[in-house]
Every structure is written in structure tokens, then in C-alpha cells.
């Protein structure tokens, strides 16, 4: 009989427990959390000069206006570089959430560029530790002027870059990206080379929800030897901040690079950091959403 009373007691306890459990606990016991894709690895589609793993969503159009000024060490007569700006105006468009295309025009070498950016993998707990994006770009220099230089075929003006962007958001504040690149130029003058490999690194640290610190560095793996006054190229380094205000992202930075295409900042960075050749620059991004309905 002792056993029976224990069972009776347990039974009463269980009933009481069931009674005190409220509707919310009951509701939550039926809900399972599924891991989600990690979003907002970077604030912008560019870390500073180069692309981040961020893609524009379907039917979103981003207008990106970028300026790179002259060297700060050029002195007061040039207003520390402000008189002399290189400009790129570009558009990124979300064909789908996983595929973006873009075009741009740079005043540097009067170039046009176009790219396809596709998401391969998305960071997700339990399935992938990183996000991966492929980036294919093409560039055409229209300087020197084609009508005055009919002897230069179009193919001689072209260059390509292939990159793989791999990023991980370690926590809500810190994200890091590693990106190997291959730059191919159809025609170069010695000692420049046709094919350059580089390994880029980018990172961001959120200071406040609307402000982040960014850094970007490209290490050239097979750089040609520098020849003073003939050919001088350096690895590209940039540090900057992102300020986000609703539909705009303002990116302000300092860098030894002036180019706004992979071809230029990876393989044609002329600023020597050891002599203080630093440029101020900014990107302003505005995103427009076309109806999703």
C-alpha cells in the first residue's frame, strides 16, 4: 500500500505541475528554433575598395558614388589632395537574392567595368561556418581615346579579375573576409605582368549599430620588381569607417590606393606608405527598392 500512496502522491504532483504550466510554456514547447542564415556580415557591398560578401536583395538597385582624392602629402597648394579627385559612379542590381550584376565608370583611365557576383554558400549554424561569393569582373580602358588611336584593338584595352570572397561573422560586431584574386590584363608594358595573384583580407568591427571600423589589405603574391620612376607598385592598404543612415551608407577612408576597380587597386596601387602617400576617399551608397510584389 505504501507504493500506491507514493504513486498517488506523484500523480497529484504531476497534475499540479500541469495546472501551473501556462499557455505560453505550452506554446513554446511546440516551437523549435531552426538555425538561420547569418545576415549583415558587412554593412556595405564594398568593404572599402573591394567587394564584400554582401549582396543586394532581389530588385534592389544600389547607386554607388566614390571619390578618391590626391595625396595628402601633396601639400597645401593642392589642398592636401582635395583638388584632385578620381571618381567612380556605379550601379549594383539584385537580379535575385543570390545574384547581383553591376556596372561602373571610373575617371581613372576613363574605364568602364562590369561584374557578376554570385552567392555560393551562406554562413549558417550547423551547415556552413563561412559565406562564399564568387566575383567575376571585366574592365575596358577607353584612354587613350579610341578615335585618335584606331590602332589599339579593343581586346588590348581589356582586363579581367576573378575573385572568391570568403567571410565569417564571428559575432554581431566582428566580421572577417579573406579573398584570393587573379587579375589578368591582356596587354601590359614590361616590367608589368599579365597575370597577378593576390590575397586580400578585410575586416569590420561595429562600434555602434550605425558605425563600423573597416580595414582592407591586398597582398600581391607574385609582384613584379619595382623600378624607380618606371614602375612602382605597392600592396593596397585601406582603413575607414562606415556610417549608416537609413538608405545611405557613407564610407570614409584613408588608403595608398586610388583605384575603385580590382584591376586598379590590387595591381596598380602607386602610393608608397613608407613615404606617406595616403589618399582620402569616400563611397556614398544609396539603395532603391523596386516593388517585390
Amino acid at each position: 500500500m505504501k507504493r500506491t500512496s507514493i504513486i498517488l502522491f506523484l500523480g497529484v504532483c504531476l497534475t499540479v505541475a500541469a495546472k501551473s504550466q501556462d499557455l505560453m510554456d505550452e506554446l513554446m514547447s511546440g516551437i523549435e528554433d531552426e538555425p538561420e542564415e547569418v545576415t549583415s556580415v558587412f554593412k556595405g557591398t564594398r568593404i572599402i575598395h573591394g567587394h564584400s560578401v554582401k549582396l543586394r536583395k532581389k530588385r534592389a538597385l544600389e547607386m554607388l558614388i566614390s571619390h578618391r582624392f590626391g595625396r595628402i602629402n601633396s601639400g597645401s597648394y593642392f589642398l592636401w589632395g582635395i583638388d584632385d579627385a578620381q571618381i567612380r559612379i556605379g550601379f549594383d542590381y539584385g537580379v535575385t537574392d543570390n545574384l547581383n550584376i553591376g556596372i561602373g565608370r571610373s575617371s581613372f583611365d576613363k574605364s568602364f567595368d562590369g561584374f557578376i557576383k554570385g552567392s555560393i554558400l551562406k554562413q549558417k549554424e550547423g551547415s556552413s561556418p563561412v559565406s562564399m561569393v564568387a566575383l567575376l569582373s571585366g574592365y575596358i580602358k577607353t584612354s587613350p581615346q579610341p578615335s585618335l588611336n584606331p590602332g589599339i584593338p579593343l581586346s588590348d584595352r581589356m582586363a579581367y579579375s576573378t575573385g572568391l570572397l570568403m567571410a565569417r561573422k564571428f559575432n554581431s560586431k566582428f566580421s572577417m573576409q579573406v579573398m584570393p584574386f587573379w587579375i589578368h590584363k591582356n596587354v601590359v608594358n614590361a616590367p608589368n605582368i599579365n597575370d597577378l595573384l593576390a590575397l586580400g583580407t578585410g575586416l569590420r568591427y561595429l562600434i555602434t549599430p550605425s558605425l563600423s571600423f573597416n580595414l582592407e589589405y591586398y597582398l600581391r603574391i607574385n609582384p613584379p620588381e619595382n623600378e624607380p620612376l618606371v614602375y612602382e607598385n605597392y600592396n593596397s592598404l585601406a582603413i575607414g569607417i562606415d556610417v549608416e543612415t537609413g538608405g545611405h551608407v557613407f564610407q570614409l577612408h584613408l588608403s595608398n590606393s586610388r583605384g575603385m576597380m580590382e584591376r586598379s587597386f590590387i595591381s596598380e596601387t602607386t602610393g608608397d606608405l613608407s613615404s606617406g602617400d595616403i589618399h582620402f576617399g569616400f563611397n556614398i551608397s544609396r539603395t532603391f527598392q523596386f516593388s517585390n510584389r
Partner: protein
Amino acid sequence: MVQISIKIRLTLFILFSATSVTVWGQRYTLSESEISFFSEAPLENIEALNTETSGLFDPSTGKLALAVPIKSFNFEHSLMQEHFNEKYMESDKYPRAFYQGELQGWSSDRVIQNLSAKGKLTIHGVEKEYTVNGVVTKKEGSYSMKGEFAIMVKDHKVKIPKLMWQNIADEILVTVNLVFNEEN
């Protein structure tokens, strides 16, 4: 003796199983839901719709519980949705909003009743009492509920950066449309 105790145990087991079923009461589950919010702002109106809410309703007591996944609020402007989750609602930290409430003056027999729901709403991890006026309509095997109320963003400690002030109003109008179906 052994045989008897097994019998007693079995009887008790059945008895308590039956008791706990009655204790659980009637459960209606949320089968259709539209929770939307709207805020008027000088530059762009902010509007989002969520159809992924989970919920339970107990017609014997008039109590209801809702869990609203924040990331399931769909905005037309994808960037706005991203900012909503990352910057304001901190959805990684607070993935759901919760509502626990009781219908005031509820009767499970009336076909249409105008009444108010009193309860606690937790948004962005901050709980606040709300009284929501609405209409409940009874149909065969289901109850539908409609209501509307306003939320002040600062009541739930949702911080809006100064640079954003032109984009987001302090007061958000929430519209709720729920259909609870009898569990099978």
C-alpha cells in the same frame, strides 16, 4: 496482492491522465495570422507584414498566447528589413515578441463580441501591459480576432540613432488579424 496493486496503479494512471487532460482545457491553435505595423514618416512610410506567428487560445478561459518571430516581418524595402532586424529590434538577441493575455468579459457562446484583451506584450525583451480593443467572431470550429493598437518604440527600449530620426516615427500602429482553429 501484487495483482491488485497493478490494477490500482493502472486505475490511478488512467484517472490522472484523464485529470490532466481536463486541466489542459480546450486548445485552439492559430491557423491564420496577419500582424502588420505601420508608421508614417516624412520620407518613407514604414510598413511590414508577418504571417508566421504561432499561438494558442483557450476558449474556456479566454486566455491566449502568441509568439511572433521578428525576422518574419516582411518589408517591401529589403534594406529597411535588414536595419529593422539588425539595428532596432536586435533580432538575433530577441528573436520573438510574446503576447500573453486574457479577453475581458469573454463568453465562448456569443457569435460576435466587441471586447478588449488585457495582457503583457514583450518586444525587444521589454515587457509592457497593453489593453487592446477588438472583435471576436465565432464560426464553426474556429474563432477569429481582430484588433488594433499603438506602440511607442521607446516603451520597449528600441533605440533609434539620431541620424535616423527622419525615417522612423515614435508611434507604431499595429494591426492584428488572427484565426484560431480547434485542434484535431
